[in-house]
């Protein structure tokens, strides 16, 4: 079972009794339960796992964690295909399909590698400098095809995602020793603790104490306002499989509210910048050690080590102890710690101090390296054969979440890293995340910090330290050597961002081109962008930039850290709010009846409403024409429930509405209905509708269907904030009442056929009146208002009676030829009648005079919202857009809403727009294309002809008054 690099023993995290088989680019690979994909591939001797973005260079595993820039693979197939998954984090599973990315035709032979042979042609800013003639769009399609890593699935995601809201006293991020100690100490004094860990398994044995909830495979990715922390959990065992696998919850999106957050996120080891530091087999030193200890995997048989700090010595000793050859340890520092040198000598490891790698070779795997020594007669270049290289460029705290929360970093010159400044109230970095790199000191730092965290929660300091956290003091680490120290030669082959193929020379170039801000350099070179987000590609860039511009690290600063810390599946953020559950669907009370009648439903302002009722085989246009003709000639039934309905009650109700509406409402008598428009303080129309006075102190106010919630808030803002002295209560009763509209010349006869205690006589109940009573024994409120232009009764009954009333009215209307009609038919009729729809015939600049409503507003005495603005000079300009009717008189004999109205044009050149068509339809009644539009000086141009342009097609229209049909309103009374 063991591959060529799998040792016969060792591996704290794997279960050798449970082999796991998966495929990599179609070839079978075996590993053990507990392996990540990267560990299994390394164990099987697979050195090349992907190709780089720009130069398509072969790349191997660099790290053993979330910071991986090279080993990004595609998992699964079909609808479950997921690109750019980190092989260093994802566990293997039987049958898992793993594919490499960015190689064509294959990982072994990639044509894109030609970019590498001509790499000199691809400096930083290459695209910006090259693809400029005639313009970028000429090249965009081809470049987009080449760019990017991996391909997203193109079918709907079959899996489910869910949200989880969590609350705790202390959130601990990271379950290393520091995180475990923090969690244990907080739980010891009774705090509720949530511990999240990105890895799928804990390293070693640990039983969390009571009070600590541990969530593995859960990576905290964002910190937001007021301390909200988000995390992404991939459910163990839910690794992507074939398309046949049934759907299940794949990931959870955590939203965590914690009173205090402890970041035990550790530190990322940084790569060294030297020429050809990107070959497969070159790995971060501690990753080599982790694969050895946790997976029993040797990254090579002859592993050279290169470092600028003490930590890689431990790696060399461990490799040596496992029987692996270590041909050399190259330390960039001229005087490493004497004790370490002594120990290395004892282990038989040859240390070269002041040594810098100048070159490496080997194609599919490093085969050797060449280094020179800085001083003491080191002689010429020395060549060393090796099949792997473990490198360490120092350690940098994982401070992403700290910075997202607004925390600042300071540069620690001894450890050569960026350290959280410790000045946030509710977010604290501990251990290695606070640059405490020696274990005893790190754990002491955790204890000190937890005393403060728990004091902030009003809890006592913990007194017991778990036995596993009691470690003897170790030697303090020596100073870390220079960062980003690439040497003078081949800087264009020394990588600082492996994923993006950004090199030291790219940083040099951007400085030469006068980009000195770290944010500019990042964007110009793309170093640290995309998947890296400052994990392994940041520190070296900052150091090179500092050196090149003769500034300190503090002066250079850092780039901004933004969520998410690792890529997050969009599906997880959406959670259950997907498809049918995207938002609550509002159904009409008589929905089932509409469905039974074959309604064509559509979404109108969140409501599922019948657009029309197509008979078998009829198109929508044919159905609309049939319904309109039926209403105009006989009678139709329409469900108008979404119409906004408010009860406005109180002794000052009339005064309130008089101030809210732009036209007078105070004089409205009980039993009567009046049309009104509302303005905002800018004088612009925000809503219209009718207002019915039920009693001296009670009004029934209709708003537009889409405006109901907005106008409800508007009423309350004025009542609560501006006029608290008015005795008024407003209640949104929109969904409490079902509203059915009976319209057409025979509407009165239909209603009269039903038991109703309201006198429906032409004189007893005229147009624009309201009556309350009972229909079929059910309480009802009937308004004689009309949006179709026909005799019309708007009947409201308690919502739960809407369905039965619909059926009763339809049955009663049968002898009169009743048809149900949908909203598209109603909209067609209102265009024929020239009735405006706020939001179609008005925009964010429309005032009452623009829509022909200037006179009632001008005649009004007393204050109302928006009054002062109507006298601003802009509002009395002669060339304002005014509402007019338009009849299509040209060829083609049709036009669509949104078309521009232009002057009569002669010759060539751009035509000047003088307005636009706001609504348009084919009128079944007049058999012509009709519309409404906003036209400059429109009212003065009635009788003139304008050009109508849309999508390159031009026709013409006659300007008419808005009411195309029955302008005198003779039909309103039936």
């Amino acid at each position, binding site marked *: 079972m063991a591959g060529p690099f799998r040792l016969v023993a060792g591996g704290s995290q794997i279960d050798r009794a449970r082999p796991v088989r998966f495929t990599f680019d179609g070839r079978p690979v075996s590993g053990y339960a507990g392996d990540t994909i990267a560990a299994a591939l390394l164990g099987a001797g697979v050195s090349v796992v992907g190709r780089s973005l720009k130069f398509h260079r072969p790349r191997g595993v660099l790290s053993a964690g979330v910071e991986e820039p090279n080993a990004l693979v595609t998992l699964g197939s079909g609808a479950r295909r997921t690109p750019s998954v980190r092989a260093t984090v994802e566990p293997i599973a039987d049958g898992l399909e793993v594919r490499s990315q960015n190689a064509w035709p294959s990982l072994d032979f990639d044509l894109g590698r030609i970019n590498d042979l001509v790499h000199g042609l691809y400096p930083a800013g290459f695209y910006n400098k090259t693809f400029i003639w005639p313009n970028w769009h000429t090249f965009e399609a081809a470049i987009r095809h080449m760019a990017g890593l991996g391909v997203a699935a193109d079918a709907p995601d079959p899996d489910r995602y869910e949200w989880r809201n969590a609350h705790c006293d202390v959130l601990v991020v990271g379950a290393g020793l520091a995180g475990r100690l923090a969690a244990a100490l907080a739980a010891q004094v009774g705090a509720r603790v949530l511990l999240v860990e990105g890895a799928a398994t804990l390293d070693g044995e640990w039983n969390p104490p009571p009070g600590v909830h541990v969530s593995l495979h859960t990576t905290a990715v964002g910190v*937001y*306002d*007021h301390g*909200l922390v988000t995390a992404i959990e991939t459910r163990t065992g839910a690794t992507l499989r074939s398309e046949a696998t049934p759907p299940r919850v794949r990931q959870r999106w955590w939203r965590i*509210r914690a009173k205090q957050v402890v970041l035990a996120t550790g530190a990322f080891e940084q790569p060294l910048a030297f020429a050809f530091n990107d070959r497969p087999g070159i790995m971060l030193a501690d990753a080599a050690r982790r694969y050895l200890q946790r997976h029993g995997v040797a990254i090579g048989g002859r592993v050279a080590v290169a470092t600028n700090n003490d930590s890689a010595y431990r790696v060399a000793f461990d490799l040596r102890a496992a029987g692996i050859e270590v041909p050399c340890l190259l330390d960039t520092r001229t005087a490493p710690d004497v004790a370490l040198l002594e120990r290395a000598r004892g282990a038989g490891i040859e240390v070269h101090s002041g040594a810098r790698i100048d070159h490496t070779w080997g194609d599919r795997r490093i085969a050797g390296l060449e280094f020179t020594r800085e001083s003491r007669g080191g002689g010429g270049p020395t060549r060393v054969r090796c099949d792997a290289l473990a490198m360490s460029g120092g350690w940098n705290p994982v401070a992403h979440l700290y910075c997202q929360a*607004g925390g600042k970093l300071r540069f620690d010159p001894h450890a050569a890293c960026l350290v959280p400044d410790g000045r946030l109230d509710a977010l604290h970095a501990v251990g290695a995340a606070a640059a405490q790199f020696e274990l005893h000191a790190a754990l002491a730092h955790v204890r000190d910090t937890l005393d403060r965290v728990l004091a902030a929660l009003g809890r006592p300091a913990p007194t017991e330290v778990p036995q596993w956290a009691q470690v003897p003091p170790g030697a303090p680490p020596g100073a870390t050597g220079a960062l980003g120290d690439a040497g003078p030669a081949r800087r264009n082959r020394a990588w600082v961002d492996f994923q993006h193929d950004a090199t030291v020379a790219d940083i040099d170039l951007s400085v030469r081109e006068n980009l000195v801000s770290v944010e500019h350099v990042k964007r110009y070179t793309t170093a640290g962008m995309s998947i890296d987000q400052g994990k392994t590609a940041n520190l070296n860039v900052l150091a090179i930039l500092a050196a090149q511009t003769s500034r300190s690290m503090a002066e250079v600063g850092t780039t901004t850290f933004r969520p998410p810390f690792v890529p997050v599946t969009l599906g997880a953020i959406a959670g259950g709010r997907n498809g049918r559950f995207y938002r609550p669907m509002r159904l009409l009370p008589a929905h089932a009846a509409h469905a039974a009648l074959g309604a064509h439903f559509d979404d109108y302002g969140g409501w599922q409403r019948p657009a029309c009722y197509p008979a078998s085989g009829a198109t929508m246009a044919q159905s609309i024409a049939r319904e309109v003709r039926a209403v105009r000639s006989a009678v139709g039934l329409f469900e108008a429930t979404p119409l906004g309905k408010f009860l406005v009650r109180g002794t000052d109700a009339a005064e309130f509405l008089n101030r809210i509406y732009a036209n007078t409402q105070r004089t409205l008598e009980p039993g009567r209905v009046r049309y009104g428009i509302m303005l905002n*303080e*800018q004088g612009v129309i925000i809503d219209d509708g009718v207002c019915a006075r039920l009693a001296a102190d009670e009004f029934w106010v209709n708003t537009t269907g889409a405006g109901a919630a907005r106008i409800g*808030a508007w009423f*309350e*803002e004025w009542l*609560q*904030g501006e006029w*608290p002295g008015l005795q008024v209560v407003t209640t949104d009763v929109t969904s409490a009442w079902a509203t059915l509209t009976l319209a057409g010349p025979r509407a009165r006869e239909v209603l009269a056929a039903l038991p109703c205690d309201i006198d429906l006589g032409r004189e007893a109940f005229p147009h624009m009146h309201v009556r309350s009573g009972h229909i079929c024994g059910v309480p009802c409120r009937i308004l004689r208002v009309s949006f179709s232009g026909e005799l019309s009764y708007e009947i409201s009954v308690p919502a739960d009676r809407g369905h039965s009333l619909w059926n009763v009215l339809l049955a009663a209307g049968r002898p009169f030829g009743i048809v149900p009609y949908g909203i598209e038919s109603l909209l067609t009729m209102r265009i024929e009648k020239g009735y405006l729809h706020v939001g179609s015939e008005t925009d964010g600049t429309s005032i009452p005079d623009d829509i022909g409503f200037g006179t009632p507003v001008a005649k009004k005495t007393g*204050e109302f919202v928006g*009054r*002062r*603005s109507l*006298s*601003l*000079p802009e509002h009395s300009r002669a060339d304002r857009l005014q509402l007019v009717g338009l009849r299509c008189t040209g060829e083609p004999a049709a036009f669509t809403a949104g078309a521009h109205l232009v002057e009569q044009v002669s010759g060539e050149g751009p035509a000047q727009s003088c307005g636009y068509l706001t609504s348009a339809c084919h009128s079944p009644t007049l058999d012509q294309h009709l519309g409404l539009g906003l036209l400059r000086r429109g009212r003065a141009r009635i009788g003139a002809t304008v050009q109508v342009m849309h999508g390159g097609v031009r026709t013409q229209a006659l300007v008419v008054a808005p009411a195309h049909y029955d302008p005198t309103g003779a039909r309103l009374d039936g």
Partner: protein
Amino acid sequence: MMQIPCPCCGQRDETEFSYGGESHIARPPADCSDSDWADYLYFRDNRKGVQAERWRHARGCGLWFNVLRDTATHRIVQVYPITAPRPAAPEGAG
């Protein structure tokens, strides 16, 4: 995401509330100049720091109220009734 203490319902997530703009904008009398009226309509301090603003618990009790909020840090300094004047010297105001 911010958490806002509704004076009626207590601490709730920001998504339950709607924003109503800067508060205490004095409306000039109707006979003011056009320029003063335009200032009232369109010009706001947009300050970095503690700002008084209107919020409504739109998906809750419907109450409009005032909030003193630091626009740089999103710290909620104080909430108070919609008709009350801006508190004299709130902590951290400026």
